[in-house]
């Protein structure tokens, strides 16, 4: 009897829908972090408003970009039926799920446990990017229907991120010239082992050993085109012409696409604004307990984007990604939303390749190919998660995905978790192995002299 009372209670909460539940849960989280009640309510409502805004703006995708994918599929035999809605949409959906609603206190607890047991050195204060963990948890919850599996998946992604942050910390610090930080951002960390392996490989290729390319020059020529609204406009015009739209249709598409590029992030900013007081309270909480040289402060990979190589390669990756989307056979994603954020995908490549332009460009191309394939695999489950979370999808609308969600850590965890308890054991074993191997790596690194740091520009 008691079980049914509990399930009834959760069912009635579910029936309220995410537009009501998420603000309430955010407000409760705010209260946990000792915000006063009015501020906590304001934070919750703000997040709710952001979700409504996101929902409204997404209709631009169905109305304007959706028909384009149909034409590409029908007339050009290009199998690009999925729209890349970009990280703002993925983050919004992730925070709107039930895993997302409690992800902030949950990740802090996981992080604290690892700090206390000395299994990590990173204090992850980058609250915004907890959405990556929430995302992994949310799709696992959609797969399995279980909150427990969802949270376990989020924890696994979080722990792997902390370990990758630990092992890449030294390169990141010398690149930024800033001691005591590391980057545990959920996507960036998945690229760390890839870039490290590629770097070893490049060392064996004679041509790649020398490097003398002035990325600054390319950058100044491409600078303005890197602005999101220009990307949307230019892309819209090109696509309109290619698929044979008339002038009016082409311009409508172009303006709608630049509107999406500008407005979608603005809506997410409202969500972010709601999270600011919670974020700073959580930050102070962590800072107070873990300040000092033996810890790394975990920050957003955004802090790495100032390097000219990163900015330039980021812009060059826009056309490269579009070409890749057309030639990779298993890709179904029409790159769009995250084209404005291509620099994020290579944020870790620049420090690992020590600012080398050619290596970063090569690695960037490889990672974008991987990302496209994974984002395409994720499309159905992301779409289903968004629908179940209460985002309105019209009948026959194209599926959505986000390139920024296309990391193989999320892929491996979610595929394994489909196997339920058996998968859970394998995931736990993988997490254990990651902790073990990266601790070995850290020990080796601590012994080796810091001879490579002087090479950084």
């Amino acid at each position, binding site marked *: 009897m008691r079980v049914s009372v509990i399930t009834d209670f959760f069912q009635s909460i579910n029936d309220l829908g995410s537009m009501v539940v998420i603000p309430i849960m955010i407000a409760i989280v705010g209260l946990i972090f000792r915000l006063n009640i009015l501020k906590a309510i304001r934070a919750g409502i703000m997040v709710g408003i952001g979700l409504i805004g996101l929902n409204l703006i997404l209709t631009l995708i169905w109305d304007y970009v959706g028909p384009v994918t149909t034409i590409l599929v029908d007339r050009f035999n290009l199998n690009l039926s999925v729209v890349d809605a970009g990280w703002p949409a993925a983050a919004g959906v992730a925070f709107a799920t039930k895993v997302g609603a409690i992800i902030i206190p949950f990740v802090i607890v996981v992080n604290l446990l690892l700090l206390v047991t000395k299994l990590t050195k990173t204090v992850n204060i980058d609250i915004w990017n907890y959405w990556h963990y929430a995302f992994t948890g949310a799709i696992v919850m959609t797969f399995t229907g279980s909150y427990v599996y969802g949270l376990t998946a989020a924890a696994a992604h979080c722990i792997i991120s902390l370990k990758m942050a630990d092992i890449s910390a030294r390169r990141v610090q010398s690149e930024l010239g800033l001691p005591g930080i590391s980057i545990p951002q959920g996507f960036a960390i998945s690229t760390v082992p890839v870039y490290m392996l590629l770097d070893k490989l490049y060392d064996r290729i004679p041509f790649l050993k020398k490097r003398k390319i002035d990325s600054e020059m390319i950058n100044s020529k491409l600078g303005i085109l890197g602005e999101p609204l220009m990307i949307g406009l230019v892309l819209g015009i090109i696509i309109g012409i290619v698929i044979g739209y008339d002038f009016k249709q082409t311009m409508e598409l172009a303006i709608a696409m630049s509107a999406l590029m500008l407005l979608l992030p603005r809506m997410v900013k409202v969500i972010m604004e709601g999270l600011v007081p919670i974020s700073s309270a959580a930050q102070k909480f962590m800072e107070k307990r873990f300040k000092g040289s033996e810890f790394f402060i975990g*920050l*957003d990979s955004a802090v790495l984007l100032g390097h000219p190589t990163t900015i330039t390669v980021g812009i060059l990756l826009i056309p490269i990604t579009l070409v890749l989307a057309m030639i990779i056979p298993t890709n179904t994603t029409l790159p769009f939303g995250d084209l404005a954020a291509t*620099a994020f995908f290579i944020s870790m490549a620049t420090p690992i390749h020590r600012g080398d332009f050619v290596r970063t460009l090569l690695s960037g191309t490889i990672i974008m190919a991987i990302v496209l394939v994974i984002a395409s695999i994720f499309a159905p489950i992301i779409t289903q998660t968004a629908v179940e979370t209460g985002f309105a999808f019209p009948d026959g609308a194209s599926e959505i995905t986000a390139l920024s969600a296309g990391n193989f850590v999320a892929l491996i965890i979610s595929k394994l978790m489909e196997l339920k308890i058996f998968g859970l054991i394998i995931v736990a074993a993988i997490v254990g192995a990651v902790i073990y191997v990266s601790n070995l790596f850290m020990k080796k690194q601590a012994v080796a002299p810091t001879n490579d740091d002087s090479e950084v520009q």
Partner: protein
Amino acid sequence: MKTILVACGSGIATSTIICENLKTLLADNRIKADIIQCSIGDIEGRVDNADLIVTSSQLKKQYRVPTVSAISLLTGVGRDDTEKAILEYLK
């Protein structure tokens, strides 16, 4: 009134935290200024109307207005020095 550009990678995430901190700092010191939030890529197009650039990363590029790297406003380490530097530029 001076204009401050606050830039991060996306113009959304870390720059929001810096903006909130900056607003408090300015209010505490009774300074009025326009704060414009943008991405690093947007600096080029907006720098002509700005007096100061505050970023969440370290820009290698030089602009014609002073640039302050405000990573300390995210980490809390060295926050006072950064705040002092910003106030100095706004006087």
